[in-house]
Every structure is written in C-alpha cells, then in structure tokens.
C-alpha cells in the first residue's frame, strides 16, 4: 500500500510539492505513487550518507570520462561537466506505452507533412496550413524542394520535448529534428547510473536503451542498401554537445567526421583517409540544416560538404535527417496539427502540443490577452527567443505588440506550460524541481521506434519557467519500468546479426593529424615537467650552483622562450608558474590543454582509461593542494600511465603509428635542443649531470660509469647508444622503422619520410667516432643542428603528405554585377 511521504523516512521528510502542478513522485494527497515504491524503499535502506557518496562518485566518474557540455557565456565558452542527478525519473510501462504511441504517430505525421511541403504542397494549396507559416519560416529550404519523390521518407530521426501538465497529461513543447542532441547523453546517463546503483537498477526491471540504438544503426544501414560505411557529421569540438557526438559515433561504430574530412566526387561522398578516398554510404548529421552544403545552402559554411545535396539527389548517400526538416521545428504548426492529423492519417492527434495560437489570425484578439501568454517566433534563433509577457513592463509589452502587428504571421502566443516536478538530490535530502523530458524516435521499416527512456532535464532553480542545459539545468535518467526483466543487448555483442563497422581500418586524415599532435604534446609536457622537477629538487636541497641553474634556465627556454629569473627565489616562482599558469604559452598546464584539445577530436580512438588519465591532470594542478614538486611528480605519473594505456590498449594500426611518430619526433627534437643548450660547449661536471637526469638516463650512467662524469661518456649514452631507449640514436631507429610502414601516398612517390629518417640514422653513425671529444665541440654542434634539420623536414613532409587534407574553400560568384550590367 502506498504511504504518505511524511509518515516515513528521512530522505523525503522535507519533500514538499506546492499546491499546483503534477509531481512525478507523489500524488495530490501526498502519497508516493506505487511505481516508485521499490526505488524509494531501496534508497531508504542505502541512506543519505551513502547516497551523497554515490552522487560524488557520479561526479567523479563523469569528470574522469570527460563527459562535458560546452556552455557559451560572456567568458567566451567553456567546458562544463555534465550534471547528472542520482535520482532517476520513473514511469510505468502502461503509461509509457501511451506516450510511445503518441510519439510514433507524431513522427509519422511530421514526416508526411515534410514530404508534402517539399513536394506538392497540397496542405497549403488546400488550406490546411496557412502559406505564411511555411513560406516565411527560416527553416523552409527551397533547395530541398523535390529532393525526394513524395513516397520517400523525409524524417528519420525525431526528438520531442515533453512537459506534463497538472492533469497528468504530457504535451509536446517542442519538436526537434535538425540535429537532435541528447540521445547520447541519455545513454551515458544510463551507463553511469547503472554503475552507481547496480543492484537497484537490476531489480527495478528497467527497459534497456541498446535496442533503440541498434534500430538506428540498422535503419541507416538498410537505407543505404546494406551499406555500412556510416559517419556521424559533427560541427567539431567547439560544438556544445561534441562529447556526445564522439560518444555516439563510437558506440554506433560510425566514423566521426567533420565537413573538411568529406569530399564529393562523381556525385558520391567520400571520406579523406590516409589511404585515399573511401566512400560514405550514410551520414548521421549533427550539423544544422543550412550548414550541410555550401553550394546550395549557406555559401560560407565550412561545416558541410559542397555537392552533398546533389549526392543525395543522386541517391548515392543517405543523410539523416535531410536538410530542410527544420521547417517543422515550428510552433506555428501546432494549431493546425490536430486537423492535419485527421486529414492525413484519419486519426485524432494522440500527443497534443502546448496550447498555441498563431498570431497570423485573430491578431488583435490575441494581442488583447497577451499579458499572460508566452510569445515565440515561429523560427527560433539566438536573437529571437520565447518571451514570457508576464515578465515584461507595460512599455516592453507595447514594443512587442507593435512587432507582432508588423509581421503577425511570424509569431505564436502560447499559454504558459505547466511543468511537473521530480525529486532532485540536494546533498542530504530531495526537493521537487520542474522537469522536461526529451524523447527520441527513429525510423524503423515503415514506422518509428521509440527510445524506451530519454533525457530528463530539471531546473536547479525552484521557480524556473524554462529548463535548458545552456541555462544550467541538471540531467536525470528516465527509467521505464518493465513488468519483467529484459535481456541485455549491446551493440558490441551483436556481431552475429549485424556486421560491425570497423572504422579503425580507415583513418581520416584529420584523425591522423590529431594523433600526431597528441604524441607531440604528451612528449613536450613530459619534457618540461622533467626540467621543472630538476629545478625544484635542486632548490629543495639548497644546491647553490649558478652554472647549473643557468643551464636549467637555458633548458626551460626551449619550452617557453626567454626567461628572466636570475636568482633562486625567482627560479622557484618561475618554476611554479610554468607548472600551473595556463596563460603562459608552453607551460605544463598550457601543454596539457593543447594535448586535450588535440585529443578531443579523437576521443573515440583513445581508450577510456587513457582519456581519464589525461582529464585528471588539470584539476589536480588547479586545486593546488600538492607542493610544486609533488605536483610535478604527479603530472609525470599521469603522463606515464597515459603512455602505458596507449601502448597497452591502442590497436597497432596507422593511428598508433602517427601518435608514436609525433612522440618520437618531439622527443628527438627536445633532446637535440637540450644537448645544444647544455653540453655542446665545454660544461662542468654538475652541468653534465643535467641532461642525464632530464632524459631519465642518470641511473644507467651511474651503473656503467660509477661516479665519474665524463663528457664523452654522457654524449655516448644520450646520443649514440642505440640500446638506450632515451638516446637520439634509438629515436632515429624507431622513426626509421615507423616511417617504413606509412601508407603510400599518390603524390609523394616512394615514402620520402622513410628516406629522411634513414639519412638521419646514417649521419649519426657516420659521426659517431669523430665528434665525441671536447676538441670536436664545433663538429658535435654541427651534427646536432643537422639532425634537427632532418627532424623538422620529416615533420613538414608528413604534414604535407598526410595532413594537408583541408584545402581552402572559396565561393565563386558570377562576378560583381557591375560586369554584367
């Protein structure tokens, strides 16, 4: 039997749901709704302290996995950790079944409307829909007219934001079709929560999400006639939901590509890979409609592929969703949907929209009662958003009215939507907060499949009127409770049914580029950290050795340019700054950021562990709880475990080769610079020790030569000794080996990279006998400089052959019109 909230438990004792509005957890008389009973009882036995601990585990897990959402604010955009509340929202399957039917019907209806709008436009001609609602809508793309024959599906992926009114009925408050976000976050939320509350999750019999994603992949594959070369087109790492795009691409086994990775040739879409062009059959598009093709849509877009629309017309590629769908992200449609549903499907609209009036009709009577309505433009954009008239002054309201009068057709007025509330964990108790559910449907055969779950967002502010992630909402998982447990389905385990896409075989050039730089930055960070460690150790041991400090300063300058810190106090300050100050170009923190930025573009290629390790570095530096020396040790430890994870878990394909090449090139360049700065002349013994320590070869040296510091011996170990994994010779041999396996390149002829690496090795072997003694200092210097030249050439050659995948794209117009008339 359901019990009243206040009769029990500590977790909910202060849960007060105001008088109006539906609450997901408790009913009007304050009783817990039956389908929540099991969860509440279970959480009760977990207890508030444990819950708080698990909530902090969620945060830790999310931080370490780099689950982020990019927020755009006055500071120019930053990454925010994805906020997930421990308490899911529950719904029983009977109630969900009704919503599911509604979503399917609505998706089918919107698909039919799209086919009509980009085809015969009967809905307008026959008066079911006012022309202005479509023709004046910013999302109506004339280039999409006639894109497909009307019997071909237009809408494939659909998302709806749902709000539950005081009567318990769900309403659609917005339709999302351009590039709906959040399905990946919903999946991530599920993964996190099922780990955090494993037994509760298991015993709650929650519908799994995996089948939905399998439907999506199967549908894309079937659309392309069984083609499985699928890609997710992302606007790039700066996009607010980049994390989930990378996450989804990885989960679905799609290549994550940007516009510049694609090219249209012979009416087909290709991915530029290290091995040349590879055709793409299907594209899951996360780039907004007008950016998809600069030829026919927004001419200055660099996010799409020129000629994509023609490839779509030719039927050589399927794009989900096709450009033009944004015309139905249009509240101007709402008043007309019930009748259109009757007309097209012969059914009543199951899932109603928020109560909406189109200002193009009965304008004056709407304006008369505007004060308690919400006004929205039919095409929303950043400048043009919903306004709650209750919040306007008399003057502002008059301005709005005259704007509406000038183009009444471009506005709607809606009644304020009442949102239901759901419990949000507040450190030690639950409080009700307003929520919105985003649900998803994907085309399947001739209908749609609905994700049994979704992304719930709640407002942290108890009096909020809208909930968006951009404005600081918190997310929740949505659990649809099955009457009995479901079988576990994972895309990975479904090899038998569906061919898995092994995207690792075809490496986009941009990915190789990023991997190369991950290698270089990882090595660079490590190099600087080693120098800083040496400085801090010497300072801690009060070693007053001016010559040594001068050499260390010179070593630092390799990384950060000219320095000014001529005494030990200044040295300590400088060292700390070079560790934690992200504003100093080349500092450890700056390098780590560069490393993460390069890595972000290939998040789906680095293992989770490798990624987690990288993401731990910055928070630790930021906290500043450790002493500088411990911080440096900490950074070095993270970097070495990052390298370990890469070595242990990255497949040995071309991707790994590029990362390794970046690392080796950087390591060689840094050693050459260090040797040039520190021992190319005639250094004292204490200075001779420095490169050994920085290059991690000190122990080897001691073992071999006991205490004697000899210049020739140091040089031998650091430069010529091929068996020392830190020596220049060893790096060059590895480079030679790595370059030999580089993919062939049409224009490059026979592997010039390998030739350069061989020359480097040969030069070193030739010089071995002649340059080790102090008398040969100038020749040694010369050798180091020549090797540096080879390394630079190697890096440049690779850049030219493999990374110049982005060509300048420009628009061509038929001249200034002064030449035409």
């Amino acid at each position: 039997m359901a019990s009243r909230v206040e009769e029990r438990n500590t977790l909910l004792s202060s849960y007060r749901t105001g008088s109006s509005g539906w609450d997901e957890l408790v009913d009007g008389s304050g009783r817990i709704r039956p389908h929540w009973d099991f969860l509440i009882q279970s959480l009760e036995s977990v207890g508030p302290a444990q819950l708080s601990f698990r909530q902090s585990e969620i945060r830790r897990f999310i931080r370490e996995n780099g689950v982020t959402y990019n927020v755009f604010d006055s500071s120019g955009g930053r990454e925010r950790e994805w906020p997930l509340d421990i308490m899911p929202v529950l719904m029983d399957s009977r109630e969900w079944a009704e919503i599911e039917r509604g979503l399917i019907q609505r998706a089918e209806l919107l698909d039919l409307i799209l086919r009509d709008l980009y085809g015969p436009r009967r809905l307008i001609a026959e008066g079911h829909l006012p022309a202005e609602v479509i023709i004046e809508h910013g999302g109506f793309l004339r280039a999409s007219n006639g894109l497909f024959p009307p019997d071909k599906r237009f809408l494939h992926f659909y998302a709806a934001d749902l709000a539950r009114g005081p009567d318990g009925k769900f309403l659609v408050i917005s339709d999302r079709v351009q590039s709906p976000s959040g399905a990946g976050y919903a999946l991530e939320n599920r993964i996190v929560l099922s780990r955090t509350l494993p037994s509760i999750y298991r015993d709650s019999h929650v519908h799994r999400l995996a089948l939905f994603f399998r439907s999506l992949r199967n549908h894309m594959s079937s659309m392309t006639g069984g083609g499985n070369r699928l890609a997710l087109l992302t606007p790039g790492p700066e996009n607010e939901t980049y994390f989930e795009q990378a996450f989804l691409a990885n989960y679905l086994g799609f290549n994550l590509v940007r516009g510049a990775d694609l090219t249209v040739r012979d009416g087909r879409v290709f991915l530029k890979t290290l091995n040349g062009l590879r055709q793409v059959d299907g594209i899951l598009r996360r780039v907004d409609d007008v950016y998809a093709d600069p030829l026919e849509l927004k001419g200055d877009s660099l996010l799409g592929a020129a000629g994509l629309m023609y490839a779509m017309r030719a039927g050589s590629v399927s794009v989900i969703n096709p450009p033009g769908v944004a015309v139905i992200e249009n509240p101007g449609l709402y008043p007309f949907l019930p009748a259109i549903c009757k007309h097209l499907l012969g059914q009543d609209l199951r899932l109603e929209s928020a109560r909406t009036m189109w200002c193009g009709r009965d304008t004056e009577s709407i304006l008369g009662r505007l004060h308690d309505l919400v006004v929205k433009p039919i095409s929303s954009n950043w400048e043009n958003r919903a306004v709650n008239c209750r919040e306007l002054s008399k003057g502002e309201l008059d301005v709005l009215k005259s704007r509406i009068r000038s183009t009444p057709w471009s506005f709607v007025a809606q009644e304020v939507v009442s949102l239901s509330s759901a419990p949000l964990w507040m450190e030690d108790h639950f409080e009700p907060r307003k929520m919105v559910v985003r649900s998803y449907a994907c085309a399947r055969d001739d209908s749609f499949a609905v994700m049994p779950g979704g992304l719930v967002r709640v407002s942290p502010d108890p009096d909020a009127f809208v909930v968006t992630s951009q404005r600081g909402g918190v997310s929740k998982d949505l659990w649809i409770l099955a009457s009995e447990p479901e079988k576990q389905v994972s895309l990975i385990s479904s090899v038998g049914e569906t061919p898995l896409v092994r995207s690792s075989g075809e490496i986009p050039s941009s990915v190789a580029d990023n991997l190369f730089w991950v290698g270089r930055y990882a090595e660079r960070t490590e190099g600087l950290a080693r120098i800083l460690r040496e400085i801090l150790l010497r300072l801690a041991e009060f070693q007053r050795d001016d010559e040594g400090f001068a050499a260390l300063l010179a070593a630092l300058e390799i990384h950060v340019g000219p320095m000014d810190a001529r005494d030990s106090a200044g040295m300590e300050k400088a060292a700390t700054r070079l560790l934690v100050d992200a504003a100093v170009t080349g500092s450890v923190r700056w390098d780590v950021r560069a490393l993460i930025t390069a890595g972000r573009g290939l998040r789906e290629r680095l293992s989770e562990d490798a990624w987690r390790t990288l993401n731990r570095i910055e928070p630790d530096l930021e906290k500043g709880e450790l002493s500088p020396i411990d911080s440096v040790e900490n950074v070095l430890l993270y970097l070495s475990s990052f390298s370990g994870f890469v070595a242990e878990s990255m497949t040995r394909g071309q991707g790994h080769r590029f990362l390794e090449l970046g690392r080796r090139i950087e390591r060689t360049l840094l050693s050459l610079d260090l040797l040039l700065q520190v021992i190319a002349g005639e250094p004292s013994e204490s200075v001779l020790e420095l490169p050994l320590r920085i290059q991690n070869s000190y122990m080897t040296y001691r073992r071999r030569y006991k205490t004697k510091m000899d210049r020739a011996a140091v040089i031998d170990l650091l430069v010529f000794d091929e068996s020392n994994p830190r020596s220049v010779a060893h790096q060059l041999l590895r480079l030679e080996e790595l370059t030999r396996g580089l993919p062939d390149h049409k224009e490059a002829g026979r592997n010039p990279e390998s030739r350069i690496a061989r020359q480097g090795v040969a030069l070193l072997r030739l010089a071995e006998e002649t340059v080790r003694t102090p008398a040969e200092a100038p020749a040694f210097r010369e050798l180091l400089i020549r090797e540096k030249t080879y390394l630079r050439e190697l890096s440049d050659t690779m850049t030219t052959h493999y990374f110049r995948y982005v060509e300048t794209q420009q628009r061509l117009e038929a001249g200034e019109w002064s030449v035409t008339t």
Partner: protein
Amino acid sequence: MVRYHITHRTTYQYASQVSHCHNEAQITPRRTATQTPIDTRITVSPRPAMTSARDDYFGNRVFYFAVQEAHQMLEILSENVIDIMEPSGPSGREPVLPSSMPWEEVRAAANRTWDVRDFLMEASHVATGPDFADFASDCFTPGRPFLEAVWALNLKINNEIAYVPGSTNVSTSTFDVLRERRGVCQDFTHLALACMRSLGLPARYVSGYIESNRSGGRPHLQGADASHAWFGAWNPEIGWLDFDPTNKSMPYDQHITVSYGRDYADISPLRGIVFGGGKSVCRVEVSVQRQVASMSNS
C-alpha cells in the same frame, strides 16, 4: 515572332590551381507564355566529371557540374536558340494599359493567394519598410488602377535613379540605392521589388538578356550584351506582367527571360564552391543576335 541566338560565356582565371569545384549555373532560358527554347546547350571546360540538371523551386533550370581535374581556368559557355512572341498585352515604351482594379484590391487578393507569398517577402537583396512605401506613395495614390500605378513606379525609378555602371555591387542594399539614387539594372529592379512588397504587392525578380544596337532605328537599350534584370508584377486578373525600369519600358520582343526569383540571390547565373585557386578574375561576354527571318522554320 523573333528567333534569337544567344551566347553567354563566363571565364574564370585563377591565380593558382583549383583542385576541384562544384557549381550551379542558371543560364538556360526557361519556357514562358511568350518564349520557347528551341535549342539550349552548356559547354564547360575543362570537361566536368559530373553534370546534372534540375528544376528549382521557382521552376528555373539549374545546371550542376563538378570539375575534378586540376585547372587554372574555367569556362562556361551557354548557347541558346530562343523564339520570342510579341506579347498580346501592354508592351514597349508607351504601353497601352488595359483597365485594372485598384491596387488596394490586388493587395487584398494577394493575401488570399498562397503561391505568390514568396514574392511578398523580404529577401537578402530586398528590404521592405516605410522608406520604400513612401518613395512609391505618389505612384500608388488611393484607388489608382494597379497597372497605371506600377507603370508610374517604373517611370519614377527610371527618372530618379541615375544609371551609373560600376557604382554598385552585389552587397549594395536597397537602402543604399534609395539614398545614393544611382545604380544599375539589378539595383533598379531590387528597388522596384522593395517598393512593391512594402505596399503588400507581389513582385518578382526576372533575369535575362536583352537585344541591343539593332539597326533599323530602334533605340539603344541599356544592359545590352550583358545579363539584364527587370521585374514582374502580379495581379489576379492577368497574372504576371513584366516591367523594365532601366529602360522605361514593358518588354516587347527584345527581352529574353532566363529565371524568376525573389531577388538576385535566387537566380545568380553562376555559383560555385572552389577548392584552392586563390584570387580569381571573372569575365562575362554576352551576345544576343536576331536571326534573319528567312532562315526561320516558322
């Protein structure tokens, strides 16, 4: 009936190599009530790897081509044979205008006619607002017959806007034209559209060619041997009628229509996305030749 041979050659010379390009050309004259394409042909050099044609939203012919071999020069040659019939309605420099309903009634009818909605909107080159309504107000006096009012606007633009080649470019707005009082045929046309639409009257951009320098005493026409632009005005009785504010006329048999649209952006003769190439120089040559009558097959 007149038969024309029209050649429209566009040449791009690039500073450096273009690796490939995707283009759309709108340079094929469409079929209209008074115009019949007899033979149309587009030749591109270097030879495109891919071509395709479609009718756009406004019913214009759009030719797509992709050149995939490296090139430093691109040439698009459009050759057309077109028959033009003399219009039965008003035309020429002193058109005899039939009686028409008051312009306010055209506005009311436009509101009820969904398929002219596109031509009432602002467009990227056509602003609307009181400035334009004011400019046209002495033409559109209350109750004035529609065709008379539009003809008056056509004359007013010709009289008050100076024809100054090179004074404007594709980024010139209708506000600039109104303020500077000068421009070329595109500006004249965009201004006319701005005025019409600001008054709630459907009007469309027409792009095409015009015959020039004919021997036999006809006056020289502006915009000759180049692309030309004029506008169409809609009314529920006749449909669309064309006006040429640059030449103070209504087209008779010397205007050849290529495309219709909301403004220049919808009909620009050539657009493309080019990879590489650096700076480019574009040359356009148009020739419009009337065929000697005896050669015609009609």
